[in-house]
């Protein structure tokens, strides 16, 4: 026992030493009160440049839109990858879901949950929220279905093919909105400069392309995350094959 706990102490000291190095870096950086860099510009002129009141959404979907495109492709890769990893296992209806009372209660809550998710997505440019959060809430709704009603029920309602369709069409929508900016010569993913209606700041119909991008990302994230969940709970009858080319020594 003493050897392994000695090893533990040594590793803990190593981590602490690393943490100490990072702490020294932080002590050297005394935080200034005024905001330096482009953030100051974002706060003053986000309203008239993008028409959105939620500055974080303005940054995400207008000033640094390529980050969000990259992020959307991160989700897309992991969804496609996990689906590939679990492609060969067959889907069997396993659980019968929870008791009757829970089913009735959840069927009462689900519409409000979906409404809430739609609200987060659509109001992304006005209040805190956006495509990612809304899509994730929508995915939790589908997961709730699976747990409460048993995996069979939900699979019948939304077939994996339609989820793929929603996901890739959401991603394509994102890129097409961007191409409009490119086509009008104002640079990829341009918002007001590409002719999207800025509308009246603070209203529902404002913020140029930001609500459209929010919807696209919302579709993609919701379909993607529910595909991840559903490919993981498949029953794993399929034994992992040996590497086709390797003589296992």
């Amino acid at each position, binding site marked *: 026992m003493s050897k392994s706990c000695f090893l533990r102490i040594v590793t803990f000291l190593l981590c602490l030493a690393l943490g100490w*190095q*990072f702490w*020294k*870096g*932080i*002590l*050297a*950086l005394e*935080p200034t009160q005024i*905001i*330096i*860099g*482009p*953030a100051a*510009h*974002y706060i003053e002129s986000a309203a008239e440049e993008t028409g959105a009141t939620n500055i974080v959404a303005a940054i995400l979907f*207008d*000033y*640094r*839109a*390529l*980050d969000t495109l*990259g992020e959307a*492709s*991160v989700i*897309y*890769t*992991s969804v*496609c*990858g996990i*689906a*590939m990893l679990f*492609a060969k296992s067959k889907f069997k209806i396993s659980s019968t879901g929870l008791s009757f009372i829970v089913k009735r209660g959840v069927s009462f809550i689900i519409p409000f949950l979906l409404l809430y998710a739609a609200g987060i997505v659509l109001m992304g440019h006005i209040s805190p929220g956006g495509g990612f959060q809304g899509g994730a809430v929508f995915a939790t709704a589908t997961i709730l279905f699976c747990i409460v009603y048993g995996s069979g029920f939900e699979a019948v309602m939304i077939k994996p093919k339609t989820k*793929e*369709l929603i996901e*890739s*069409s959401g*991603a*394509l929508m994102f*890129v097409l909105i*961007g*191409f409009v*900016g*490119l086509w009008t010569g*104002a*640079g*990829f*993913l*341009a*918002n007001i*400069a590409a002719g999207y209606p800025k509308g009246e700041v603070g209203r529902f119909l404002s913020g140029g392309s930001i609500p459209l991008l929010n919807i696209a990302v919302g579709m993609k994230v919701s379909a993607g995350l529910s595909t991840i969940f559903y490919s993981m709970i498949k029953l794993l009858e399929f034994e*992992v*094959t*040996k*590497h*086709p*080319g*390797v*003589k296992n*020594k």
Partner: protein
Amino acid sequence: MISLLTVLIPLTWAFLIPLIHIFRKTWLKRAILLFGIAVFFVTISAAISGWKQSALSFLGGWPAELGIVLIVDKLSAAFLFLSAIGGGAAFLASYGRLKEGPWRYYVIFFLLQASMNGVLITGDIFNLYVFYEVFSLAAYLLVAFTISWQAIEAGLKYLVLGTIGAFFILLGIAYIFMATGSLNMAVLSLVLPHIPNEALTVIAASLLIGLFIKIGAFPVHFWLPDAHSSAQTAVSALLSGVVVKVSIYTLLRLSLLLFLETKPAVFTVITVVGTLSVLGGHLMALRQEDIKRLLAYSTVAQIGYVLIGVGTGMAAGISAAFFHAINHMFMKVGLFIAAGHIAEDMKTRNIYDLRGLYHHRRWFVIVFSLLTAAIVGIHPLGGFMSKWYLMLAATKAGNVIPALALAFGTVISAFYYMRVLSFFYSSGDPPPRQTYPYWNLAIAGACALCCVFLGIVPLVPSLWKLVSDIGLNAVDTAEYISTMLSK
């Protein structure tokens, strides 16, 4: 504008393939081939346009301080050219092998290519991190694509170590943001000299360790041999040839822009790690019996050579490093495709079982020995030329020990590569059935020819001027900053 397409075209292809799979299943086979070729030509044209005059494209119309700017100068144009050819070769090899197989493989392949081009042309540090994450995630999945137990285990180890590396890079970026507030690389290289020294140390150290994990330099390379040897043939060729070079490009771009004047110690660290990789990689390769694992350890050693070139921090060193990178890309893609095909065909990867291969796979063994001669560094082929210019640059920068490590490494690599060839040429047992694939042999042969051609490049003045321009352009960061912040 064309530089933006190198990212967008493969991305749209990746999003289109599921739709084609759902609606027009029959078109899938031809569509994937068409997509691959289109991506190759778009990247090549972007590289050429970026080479003539450094192309700039402002995303969303916002200037450099506000939004993200994509810039293709000579250095990124050169690496774009490298990734286009490597990616194209790997695509042809995988297309030949899988036909339209699991279509999700091609989705991830195009996403990897899109994010690779994104890393090469972006001018913003956080955007670099995001594309880097897409790129690593796609690499983890491609390693684990064959779903055999080795591939999954290698994928897990690659994922955990790669994510730890990504967290170190993210910490570095967080500290940069805390110190300066802005994220554009050009703005950073102007502002970074004025921040306190301890903060700069933390930034430099965390970025360095994160990138060393991602590149697979010696002290932290443990995932590389597992990942490159247990991956599928075309994937291991892609990983060794191209994916490693893009990580080295990131290290090169960051260290040149941020740490050239402020912290020159970074370059000594890179040289030391490079020397360690050379020695460690070659020593480990001596003991290998599995041919793909041997090639993977040889990649670790060749990374060491490129890092020695980068560590000089001078124009000569960087162009020598690029010349070795493109040489190594051709050699490794050819070697991995040839070795992978032989391993799959003979159902074994152990060298001792591959005895007497010369008698029934004559052309494969000839191409393999030509590539081995190139990678060991026999005179007329490219490998020797790049090693010579690396040695020149290292001695000019004053570090003699790396030059000696380079020489010592060449001798050891000659030893274990000749050992492999001795098994190929020895008299062997009767051959199993002969499946004569033309495409793998064609690709490996093409790579061998490119090695021969690259051997002549230093003798032709105009071609050599291209290579030395890369180093000159990369080192004078003032020109990069002026083009970025001019509009």
